[in-house]
């Protein structure tokens, strides 16, 4: 099996860049890609990511991505994880939560 692919597509640029860089540095065994949210659907087709992290989950994400995180929609402190077919709501996600998930993607 090849390296797991993570596509980071959060809306606010410096936040997106920060997540992508931290994941690349601290989880070097996964491939991390970054895109502006308006290009998310095209990048899903091109990259076929195993996990998408975005601010607003779209129909295409729900239909075509096995795992996704809707992280802080509208910058509110709650997020939704869809991992391994299970939905989970989580308040006040920490960086370590994201790192742990990237280390154990199904």
């Amino acid at each position, binding site marked *: 099996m090849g390296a797991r692919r993570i596509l980071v597509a959060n809306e606010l640029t410096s936040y997106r860049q920060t997540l992508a*860089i931290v994941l690349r540095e601290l989880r070097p065994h996964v491939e991390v890609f970054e895109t502006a949210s308006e290009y998310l659907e095209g990048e899903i087709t091109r990259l076929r990511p195993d996990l998408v992290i975005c601010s607003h989950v779209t129909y295409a994400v729900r239909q075509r991505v096995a795992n996704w995180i809707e992280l802080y929609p509208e910058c509110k402190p709650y997020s939704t994880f869809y991992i391994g077919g299970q939905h989970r709501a989580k308040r006040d996600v920490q960086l370590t939560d994201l790192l742990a998930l990237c280390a154990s993607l199904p």
Partner: protein
Amino acid sequence: MAAQNDPVHEVALGGINSLPKPPDNRTEDPARRRGRPRVLMANEPRAYREGIAAVISQLRPTVDVETVEPDALDESIKRYVPDMVICSKATETLKGRVRVWVELYPENGAISVANIGGRRMEYTEIQLPDLLSIVDKAEELAKAN
């Protein structure tokens, strides 16, 4: 003054080595480390605050970085006496006491505002290298004092 970054044409960053390096004139002597510049992070949401703090700590090892919850900002400014603050909502205490600060995405919009030694800058879509550049300016101002 406005620093413009077109979000459509922004360049995706690579690894941490793709980010701007600090100026070359830095030293690591122990005396310098004791009085090293301080950056206080109080923006929200939390994972972004922690992520930016991690990047600054990694890329600017001569800088001390502390993270606090936004509601502890004013108290932390008085206790920690930072040279720079990154927050989501600038307070009067912040404006009165800190020379360099960034109000990052207030009201969750794309606009951010920075104050660098009394000079106001507005960013339509601030990027991580911009934040690192402001950290460098805060360090220069701290050294000059």
